[in-house]
């Protein structure tokens, strides 16, 4: 953006105005009263056995978990991110929580606890297929277990497998053994090791060769239980020439305690396959004083294994107290394509250190990074992105655009780009800008008839447009609305 006059946000009037503005309520903050079965808090090999046992896992899975757990014990929590929080006591967290009614697996939706169904309805995710969003199949994960997966029959007919990963471990062990940990090994980082040891559920999608998945797939994550971490694991495999669009949504109740969410998502795209992964993340961000909220420490990575494969990450991140997340693409196949489109909002006392990694291995690989960061109130946001061009990646190209928008004078935006080019024929472009929503822009809109709040929404939505248009239609509308709610009251 050009021609933006800096706003003098230090005067008291504006500080007051900003306080008035950012008073939006978190509408998903309710708690579902449901009987829950917990594992005792703390983490040791017994807990790993307990989780594996709960899931009736085969021996090889237990071994995988134990290996990861033992490795995790040798690791230290990373401290390089530009965020600060009190030390996490990993022995105080509960690593498994499940609604009691899920003990004897319900065979159909009719057997699912009505309280659970109501929860999802309240969140706008009806799980009854007749009421469901047209063309979207949903897997609903509540605390540590998947409660329902819709449209499974329709998908099965197309040859698509879409089920809780816990079920896939039983039913498709060969696929899980082949792919689990193949993109994010348990040795990848502290949180990935932790996840590999204790993950309880998540979604598994498999799109066979030459198949275009007939509907959007979606997983909706909900953390309900107190003092519980959610460690979900998602694995998506698109075989040669396959296509899938996958959506992920997340919410949690308002609680005064911080809760840990350490997920791992792995994507595998074979030759000519395409995976489009979209996230609308709206975990509880904590209150205005920074009390409560989710710690969202997530490892997401995809690999374009074959030629001309394409993986695209689109994310709208408005929630969580602290975010540590870098959805990445390994571009192994020649001519493969990686994309990252992100809108991240930090308001209240939220902190986010987020970005992406594009690892170019194959020839003529191409990546695009569009990152839009918005900070308001006392939000602190860092973009951290790596573009690595390896020696064999002849003709590799990257374009990065990284824009930050500040609303008010108490927030911050930081950019940490890491560009590492080991091939002379590569072309890497990086553009970055930081701007403020300026009073003249708001005045201009107001003079044309918009209310102040609508003016801010219009300006912010314009700022995010390049990312929103990458989202599937229903999600784009939701994302826009979510953004407006997140920034309510950010300017007075």
């Amino acid at each position, binding site marked *: 953006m050009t021609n933006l006059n800096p706003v003098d946000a230090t005067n008291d009037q504006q500080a007051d105005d900003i306080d008035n503005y950012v008073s939006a309520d978190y509408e998903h903050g309710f708690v579902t009263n449901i009987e829950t079965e917990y594992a005792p808090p703390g983490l040791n090999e017994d807990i790993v056995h307990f989780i594996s046992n709960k899931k009736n896992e085969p021996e090889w899975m237990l071994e995988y978990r134990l290996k990861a757990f033992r490795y995790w014990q040798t690791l230290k929590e990373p401290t390089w991110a530009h965020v600060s929080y009190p030390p996490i006591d990993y022995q105080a967290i509960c690593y498994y929580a499940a609604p009691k009614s899920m003990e004897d697996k319900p065979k159909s939706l009719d057997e699912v606890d009505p309280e659970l169904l109501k929860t999802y309805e309240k969140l706008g995710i009806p799980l009854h297929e007749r009421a469901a969003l047209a063309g979207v199949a949903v897997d609903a994960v509540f605390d540590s277990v998947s409660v329902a997966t819709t449209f499974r029959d329709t998908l099965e007919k197309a040859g698509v497998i879409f089920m809780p990963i816990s079920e896939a471990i039983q039913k498709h062990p060969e696929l899980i053994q082949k792919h689990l940990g193949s993109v994010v090994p348990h040795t990848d980082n502290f949180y990935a090791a932790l996840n590999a040891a204790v993950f309880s559920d998540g979604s598994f999608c498999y799109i066979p060769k030459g198949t275009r998945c007939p509907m959007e797939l979606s997983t909706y994550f909900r953390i309900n239980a107190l003092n519980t971490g959610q460690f979900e694991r998602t694995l998506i495999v698109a075989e040669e020439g396959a296509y899938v669009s996958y959506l992920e949504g997340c919410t949690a109740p308002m609680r005064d305690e911080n809760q840990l969410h350490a997920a791992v998502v792995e994507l595998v795209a074979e030759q000519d396959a395409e995976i489009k992964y979209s996230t609308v993340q709206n975990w509880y961000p904590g209150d205005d004083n920074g009390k409560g909220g989710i710690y969202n420490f997530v490892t997401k990575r995809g690999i374009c294994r074959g030629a001309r494969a394409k993986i695209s990450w689109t994310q709208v991140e408005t929630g969580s107290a602290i975010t540590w997340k870098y959805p990445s693409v390994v571009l192994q196949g020649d001519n493969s394509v990686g994309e990252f489109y992100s809108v991240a909002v930090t308001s209240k006392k939220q902190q986010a250190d987020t970005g992406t990694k594009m690892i170019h291995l194959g020839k003529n690989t191409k990546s695009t990074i569009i990152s839009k960061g918005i900070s308001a109130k006392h939000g602190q946001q860092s973009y951290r992105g790596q573009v690595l061009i390896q020696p064999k990646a002849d003709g590799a190209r990257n374009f990065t655009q990284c824009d930050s928008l500040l609303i008010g004078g108490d927030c911050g935006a930081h950019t940490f780009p890491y560009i590492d080019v080991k091939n002379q024929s590569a072309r890497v472009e990086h553009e970055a800008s930081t701007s403020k929503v300026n009073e003249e822009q708001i005045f201009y*809109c*107001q*003079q*044309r*008839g*918009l209310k102040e709040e*609508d003016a801010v929404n219009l300006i912010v939505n*314009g*700022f995010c447009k390049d990312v929103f248009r990458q989202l599937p239609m229903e999600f784009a509308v939701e994302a826009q609305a979510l953004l407006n709610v997140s920034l309510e009251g950010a300017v007075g």
Partner: protein
Amino acid sequence: MLEIKDAVISVEDTPIIKGLNLSIPAGEVHALMGPNGAGKSTLSKFIAGHEDYTLESGTISFNGEDLSDMDIHERAAAGLFLGFQYPVEIPGVANHYFLKTAINAQRKERGEEELDTAAFLKELKKEMSELKMDPQFKSRPVNVGFSGGEKKRNEILQLALLKPKMAILDESDSGLDIDALQVVAEGVNRLRNQERSFLLITHYQRLLNHIKPDVVHIFADGVIVKSGGFELAQQLEAEGYKAFA
């Protein structure tokens, strides 16, 4: 239509306008001429309701309504339009979307129904061709990458579609070459009618050769020092502001 009486207007407790009287009846075009720093832009932003400007004493009313109680967007809905000296850029927001949003916001404020999209697009197309604007400006982000002349033309386009009761045009001629000036002037002349008033704020007589005002005010150091007909503008051009100080 617009009545300002004995207005003292300050910015951060410093009076900029020191006892202004201005009355613009319906259908008249007034020109306010003054040197740099006379407070011309202060006046236009103050009328529009910019919160940096405070009415210390005096009154301001629009069609009999006290403006001092009204928010910026309420004044806009009441029919007050300000053409900006430096139109603001809004990246990512398409021109047509902005216009439609603005029109509907005003209509909503007035309790009217939303505008039909097809009718809006038809009118937009017509007005853009009147202003000799390339159709691609419809979808481009508001004022982003527009030249000075294109921005000013875009202001007149907004004026034509928002159909205000009164338009204040702040230095609409600045930065325009002669062709662009003519397009803008023709646009304004076309929009002149019995009900609509204009206040042209300008440094030079140039614009007034194309848009003939009914009344000319000479404005210096926060007060109107002289009012008269078009001949006043000619006298000013010949003798300079010094003659009126």
